[in-house]
């Protein structure tokens, strides 16, 4: 299965959303809304979408200038040169057992707040999508950096669309958020997505941040994969059975 090149060693990670304009960053690329009316025929760019990290002057594609212990106080090879020190500090804080890796419990703890436990199933999905193929259930510094930055961007998107600041977004806000990410979802698909988060209580469906991340990563990731097969942007693609299964299974949300 071909890596999409965006994350170097992460063949499954979806492209990260770019920061919203309000952050003053140049709004490059946008992932050419899949199926969106004014479709830019930018080819799936190979540079990381999140190239504007946290106020970095120039971006370093992760994995390309991998130098050992340049800015890490770890003393072992870890972060690529130019990694934002804030990210490195985050890693050190999150890596409670100082193993040099972040496992699912550490990540869950880092993302949960006093109010709410971040869902383990989303954590697992994130780790799976961002980990390097050789690792099992954990991410090293390089992968963590990509994951962390991506999460930060999803956070700002979420906050941007959670207009009433309820900490949840409803189906309209979700539709808008996905649209803002360049994903013009057919209503049938949106409907299906919403139904997956319906707790059956009869109350209006709302997604908190971790559900938004899960939902977003899956939709984003599947769309990226589909687009790779639909180079002509025709809206349809042909692929083989193995390809199909390889595209889809990584996004299975597992409970183990």
């Amino acid at each position, binding site marked *: *299965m071909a890596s999409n090149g965006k994350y170097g060693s992460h063949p499954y990670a979806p492209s990260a959303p770019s920061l919203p304009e309000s952050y003053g960053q140049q709004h490059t690329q946008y992932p050419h809304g*899949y*199926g969106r009316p004014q479709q830019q025929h930018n080819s799936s760019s190979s540079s990381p979408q999140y190239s504007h990290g946290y106020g970095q002057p120039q971006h370093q594609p992760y994995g390309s200038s991998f130098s050992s212990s340049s800015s890490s106080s770890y003393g072992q090879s870890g972060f690529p040169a130019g990694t934002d020190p804030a990210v490195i500090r985050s890693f050190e804080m999150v890596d409670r057992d100082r193993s040099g890796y972040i496992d699912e419990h550490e990540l869950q703890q880092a993302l949960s707040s006093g109010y709410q436990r971040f869902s383990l199933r989303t954590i697992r999905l994130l780790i*799976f999508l961002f980990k390097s193929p050789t690792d*099992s*259930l954990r991410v090293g510094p390089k992968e963590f950096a990509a994951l962390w930055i991506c999460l930060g961007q999803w956070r700002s998107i979420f906050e941007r669309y959670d207009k009433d600041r309820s900490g949840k977004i409803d189906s309209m806000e979700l539709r808008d958020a996905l649209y803002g990410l360049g994903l013009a*979802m*057919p209503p*049938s*698909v949106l409907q*299906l*997505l919403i*139904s*997956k*988060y319906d707790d059956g209580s009869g109350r209006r469906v709302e997604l908190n941040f971790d559900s938004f991340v*899960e*939902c977003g990563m*899956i*939709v984003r990731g*599947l*769309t990226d994969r*589909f687009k790779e097969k*639909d180079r002509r942007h025709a*809206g*349809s*693609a*042909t*692929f*083989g*059975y*193995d390809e*199909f*299964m*390889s595209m*889809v*299974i*990584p*996004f*299975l*949300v*597992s*409970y*183990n």
Partner: protein
Amino acid sequence: MSGYSHSPPGYGYGYGYGSASPPGQPYGETPQAQHQYDHKAQAYDAPAKPHKNQAGRGGYPAPAPSYGSLFAALVPSVFPPGTDPEIIACFQLADQDGSGFIDDKEMQRALSSYNQRFSLRTVHLLMYLFTRTNTRKIGPKEFAALFYSLKSWRGAFERFDRDRSGFIDANELRDALLSLGFAVSPVVLELLVYKFGKTGGKKRAIEYDKFIECCLTVKGLTEKFKEKDKAYTGMGTFTYEEFMLTVLPFLIA
């Protein structure tokens, strides 16, 4: 293409769906391959025509003498004639409110007593697979199909958990899926073991209830794919919308 072309002797399923064709043969076009797809179709569709042979595969017990045509006559004629009385009895037992349908909670109760505790998520997936809807209720006819599938999956698990560990590892999974008519590539196999397995001992392996979920996921996705590949070429064409609608129910359940 993954190049996964292992054809274990004796299965008769040969290349399976989507694996590379043997050298010199055009993919999916030989009559032999065609036959194998049909053969496979039987494996999938077996439940539609229940007969004793199929049932026998799962170690089917003989019906107790009290079940007979009298009993069958009491049941509304929605079970196809000749349906094994055990299935009918099972259905009746599960349908605790006597509504003529089994809902998700009733199904969970029924399945959990059978062998293992099933999560509601697995139940929903099962129902989705066998009713092709999201209604979460299953009637007699679909129930029969579900019952047979579960039996065959359980049989596969027991047969391939060779060391009786209660876990199926990647190799055993490959063989189990093959016996059920699914040939998946090593890449996909790894992914499945990762997603459905848990680490215990040296390597990741899958427990029974997760194995069931794995089977129904593979079955569901494969069937959906086949709908787009009616010519059995191994390639399917999807629009974006179709693709998303097809796969999402299996991903976030």
